[in-house]
């Protein structure tokens, strides 16, 4: 078996390299290209990473909610894997949005925190993310966990439009869309694109890992059951079916098949 770091250079590696290069270019642009604002000085540059993190937090939760809806319709755990991967990254981005926003607020408004409508809505979103992850860690059965978490995600998604529209619907001190020079806008756009590409790469890798963890648990149960279930079921993956590369993280011939899927992937009580 080849470790993922020693496999051949394929599309996935090209994508990863591009994402890392784009993120590095975005950071370099913030440090060396973006002009320093006269009133706030270098502290204004926090806005580039703050906006990128806020965008990723919102997009992450929309992805969690979307994958959860598809799970509820199809009862297929593969969509729950996407929801969990997006929730972990979204939680991180939402936390970083609050931290960078707080640092910016201290420099701009002279306070670390204020109960502005947008800040409050963003904090509520972070609480929903945290609750989602805590809830998942407390339910053992995979389909029950996925179902309960999906309902929370769908209900929690109602906070996303509130975060976006808070500056328009309510009166507060958070700027709706700050006036910027054209060069600053270009750097902001590059920052958002760079971080989005990098987090998309992390998302796909984490999702592959979650799927592998689930399949590994399924295979372990079968090996423990012993022959005839364990014998001959597992062989080391070939380089063609590397663990990290390819669409399937574990060779399909290692997994007991039923309609092309591992037996435990679908909820027997599912709608389809």
């Amino acid at each position, binding site marked *: 078996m080849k470790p993922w770091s020693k496999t051949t250079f394929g599309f996935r590696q090209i994508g990863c390299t591009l994402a890392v290069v784009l993120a590095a270019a975005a950071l370099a642009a913030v440090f060396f290209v973006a002009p320093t604002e006269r009133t706030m000085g270098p502290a204004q540059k926090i806005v580039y990473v703050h906006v990128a993190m806020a965008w990723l937090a919102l997009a992450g939760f929309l992805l969690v909610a979307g994958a959860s809806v598809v799970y509820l319709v199809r009862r297929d755990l593969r969509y729950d894997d996407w929801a969990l991967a997006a929730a972990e990254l979204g939680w991180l981005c939402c936390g970083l949005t609050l931290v960078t926003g707080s*640092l910016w607020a201290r420099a701009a408004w002279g306070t670390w925190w204020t109960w502005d409508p947008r800040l409050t809505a963003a904090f509520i979103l972070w609480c929903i993310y945290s609750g989602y992850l805590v809830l998942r860690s407390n339910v053992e059965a995979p389909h029950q966990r996925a179902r309960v978490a999906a309902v929370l995600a769908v209900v929690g998604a109602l906070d996303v439009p509130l975060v976006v529209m808070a500056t328009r619907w309510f009166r507060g001190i958070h700027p709706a869309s700050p006036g910027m020079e054209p060069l600053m806008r270009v750097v902001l756009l590059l920052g958002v694109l760079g971080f989005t590409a990098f987090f998309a790469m992390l998302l796909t890798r984490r999702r592959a890992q979650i799927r*592998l963890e689930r399949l590994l648990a399924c295979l372990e149960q079968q090996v423990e059951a012993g022959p005839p279930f364990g*014998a001959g079921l597992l062989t080391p993956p070939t380089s063609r079916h590397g663990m990290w590369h390819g669409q399937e993280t574990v060779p399909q011939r290692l997994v007991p098949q039923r309609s092309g899927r591992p037996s435990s992937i679908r909820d027997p009580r599912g709608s389809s």
Partner: protein
Amino acid sequence: MTAFAVAYLVVLGAVGLYVVRLGTRQRRLEKDLAALAARSDRNETPQQAPPQAA
């Protein structure tokens, strides 16, 4: 300057930690899968017949 430096250090540090955690988990999973494959191979090996008495 301090707020700017702190903000970027926090973001890069947090993302870096996430990447390290991802790599560590991946290595552990690869190890677990290799161990499982070895266990399965042992199950598959037929038991040797006891030596026949002369």
